[in-house]
Structures are given as C-alpha cells and as structure tokens.
C-alpha cells in the first residue's frame, strides 16, 4: 500500500503539533562542541568585549533565534559588553534588534553602554577585513545613528583584535569568510552557531581549533539552554523535532519495505 503524499504531510503536521500543544520536553545531553562554545563565553570576565555577527535571514529564525536568545541571556547575565552587527545579512537587522532589546530589558542592560547594535553595511568580505583594521571606519555610528566616538566602546575597542571572541550565527558561508578574512589574519578567537544542515561543514574547522565551539541547529540551541539551565524555545522545539525525525525514519523504513516487496514480486 502506497502512502499518499497528502497523508505524509498530515502525519508530519500531527507529529509536530502534538508535542507543541501538550508542552512535551525531552532532556538534551550537551555535546563537546556546545560545551566548548559555552566555556569560551563562560570563562570571560564581566566587562570583556565580545562581538556577535548575525548572518542569517528570517527564513532560518526557527533555528537561529533560539541560539541568539540563549547566547544573549548568557552574555548579559555575565555582564559582558557586546557588539552586535550584521554585515553578512541586511534582512536580520530589525529581527535581531528586537530579540536582543527584549532580553536587554530583562537584565537591565543599556544600549550604547553595555551593548551596541551596529547593523548592516554593504561590502561583506571587505567589511570583515576592515573590522580587523578599524571598526569605526566601517561603523562610525550605531544602527540607530548614535555616533560611536561618544561611547565607551570607542575608548576600549579599536578593532576586532580587541574583542575576546567573535561569534557568528549564520545560515550561509559567512563563518568561513570570517575565519578566512578576519579570525585567522587578525588572530581573533571565533565560535559559530549554524543551521543543522550546515553543521557538518564546520567540523574540519572545529577539529583544527579554528572554531572554539559550534552550535548546530535547534539541537545546539537546546544544548546551550541545558547548560544555562533555562527552558527556552529550543528545548520545547526539540520534542517536535524528535517526533518528526522518528516519523521520517519510519517513512524511510516503509518506503524501503515497499521497494523490496515490489522488487521480489517483479522477480
């Protein structure tokens, strides 16, 4: 018996909706790449500067916004000074800013004092290289027009060599570009959070030590939440993802049983 395509869609919808409606959660065991990512942030002291580049589009918000939320909670709770910027994607400016400002209000951190949102400038690879030379020649002002030479950031940070770690949250090639043009050349430690489908691409950089840690997809965000001891969207989403994965495995199994039965029947 062949399953109709529409039945497969309905089954998947049910497998995703049920755990979300009933608030099912599973325990997620943190893996080494996530633990090293977490430790790279956890070992910093209050007041240290870190840079977070948002290099994704709203299309991948389901995977990357939970990462951004967990990371922002961590850095604000630790009292780190954070430079947020999105030179790799024009579309994420408002989404990123609203997520960060919501968490900032929870921790009472102040924009342009404890954290900075620099936004988008065109040029991508040239921008990455300029960030290693002079931050203010690329970003003379914040996304909302506040001149950076009147802020504390201007006194403390000249370029990306002055930040303790650069973290890229990405759904494209920006992590490799940042590693090539910024991290390696200017000796800036780097970690990344990427979509699940891209995570395997970055294991060579993780194994070589060029990446200090890696968050892969919703699972990576859920592991980070586990280490932070918070129950956020990623951990809740993992239940839906678990059931969806089980369904896909069952579908593959059924498809193969049908295939071998048909092959046997046809000789």
């Amino acid at each position, binding site marked *: 018996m062949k399953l109709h395509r529409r039945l497969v869609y309905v089954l998947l919808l049910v497998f995703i909706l049920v755990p979300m409606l009933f608030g099912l959660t599973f325990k997620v065991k943190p893996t080494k790449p996530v633990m090293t990512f977490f430790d790279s942030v956890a070992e910093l002291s209050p007041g240290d500067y870190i840079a977070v580049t948002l290099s994704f589009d709203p299309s991948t918000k389901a995977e990357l916004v939970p990462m951004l939320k967990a990371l922002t909670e961590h850095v604000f709770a630790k009292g780190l000074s954070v430079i947020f910027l999105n030179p790799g994607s024009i579309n994420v400016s408002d989404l990123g800013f609203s997520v960060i400002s919501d968490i900032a209000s929870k921790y009472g951190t102040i924009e342009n004092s404890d954290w900075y949102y620099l936004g988008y400038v065109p040029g991508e690879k040239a921008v990455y290289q300029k960030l290693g030379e002079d931050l203010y020649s690329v970003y003379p002002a914040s996304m909302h027009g506040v001149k950076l030479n009147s802020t504390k950031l201007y006194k403390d940070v000249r370029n990306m060599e002055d930040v303790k770690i650069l973290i890229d949250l990405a759904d494209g090639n920006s992590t490799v570009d940042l590693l090539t043009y910024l991290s390696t050349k200017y000796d800036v430690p780097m970690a990344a959070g990427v979509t699940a489908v891209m995570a395997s691409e970055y294991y060579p950089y993780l194994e070589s030590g060029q990446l200090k840690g890696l968050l892969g997809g919703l699972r990576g965000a859920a592991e980070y939440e586990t280490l932070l001891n918070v129950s956020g969207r990623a951990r809740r989403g993992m239940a839906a993802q678990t059931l969806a994965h089980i369904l896909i495995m069952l579908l593959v199994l*059924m498809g193969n049983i049908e295939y071998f039965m048909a092959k046997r029947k046809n000789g």
Partner: protein
Amino acid sequence: MKIMAPLLIVFIGGMLMAFQYYIDIPLLNNIYKGVLDWHMVIAVFALVIAVKSLIERQWKNFRQKTEHPVYPLTTLISFFTVVFLGIFFGLKQGSPVNFIYNNLLVPLQATIFSLLAFYISSAAYRAFRAKNFSSTVLLIAAMIVVMGRIPLGDLIATWTTISISGKDFAILDFPGWTRWILTVPNVGIKRAFIFGITLGIVSTSLKVILGIERGWLK
C-alpha cells in the same frame, strides 16, 4: 594598449595584495586599506545596479504579458511601497517599514523555509531507497545521524548501557556513532574538498594575475 592596460592593473593589484598579506610594510598596508574602502564603495554601487536590474526585468515581464503578470506587478508594487514608506516615514521601530518587516517578511520567509520539512518527509518516503551499496551506506549513515541528533538517541544509549569490567559501554550508542561519523569520515572528506577547492582557487587566481587566463577580458 586596450588589452595590456587591464592586464597590467590586474598584475600589479594582485601582486600587491598577495605581498601585503605576508610582508608588513606601512605603504602596502595603506594601499590595502584604500582598496578595502574602494571595495565597499563599489558594493554600494552594485546595490544601485541591482535595483535598476530588478525594476527593468520585472517591468519587461509585466509588459510582455507572461502567463502570470501578477507576479512582476506584485514585486514592483511591493518594492516601490517599501521604498516610499522608508523614505518618508523612516526605518525605526514602529515605523510602517518595520511593521511590514515584522508582519509580512519575517513570517513569509519563515513559512516558506519551514515547508521544506514537508517536502523532505515526502521525498524521504518516496526516494530514499537502499538500491545499491553506496545508497545503503548513505541510508545507514543518515539514519544513525538522525537518531544521534535527537534526545531519543541519548535515551537509547542510556538504556542499553552495560558495565564491562567497571567500564560503561552503550550497545546502541547512536550519539557516539554520530560523533564518529561527523569527526572522522566527514572531516577527512571535507578537508580533501577544502584543499582541492583552495588549490583550484590559487591556481586560477595565479593564471588571472599572470595574464595566462584572459577569459574575463572578453
């Protein structure tokens, strides 16, 4: 001269940028910084060209009365509406553009991307078959990684853990197998790809810089 001038510019520019990376000379560093500034300025001009190209293409599609003229018309109306609202009402939080972004662009992009899950599940059922040795290896590896990336994989590993001479050993260690697949065969193959691609880029760049490859002049 028409051929020599661009070849000379590429040769000098390419050599300067290559040497600049390895040799710390203030003059070369200043040239490098200047080139980066030019690059960013050119990127801004590229945006202008992209906008011109978008308008021309969509207008042409609309005028030619294609099967679905509503698509180019929607693109043009959306484009000019956002530009108009952006210029006259700004881009700050609470502005009309911000409203459109939060209530149209974000949910639309997220929805379209999420639909992939449905296509993947249907394709997995219809096409992911163990037809030969290679596809069987791929299928087994995929199933292990899928299992190893969900909490159920962790649970199965815990349930099937036995103690052999004081050491814990999971019989169905999906997370461990996943880790091995990702850090051993995956890394080895990816490294080979990366080295191969990089050597290709270096040789092509050298050909262009030295004027051996001149296809870009046409």
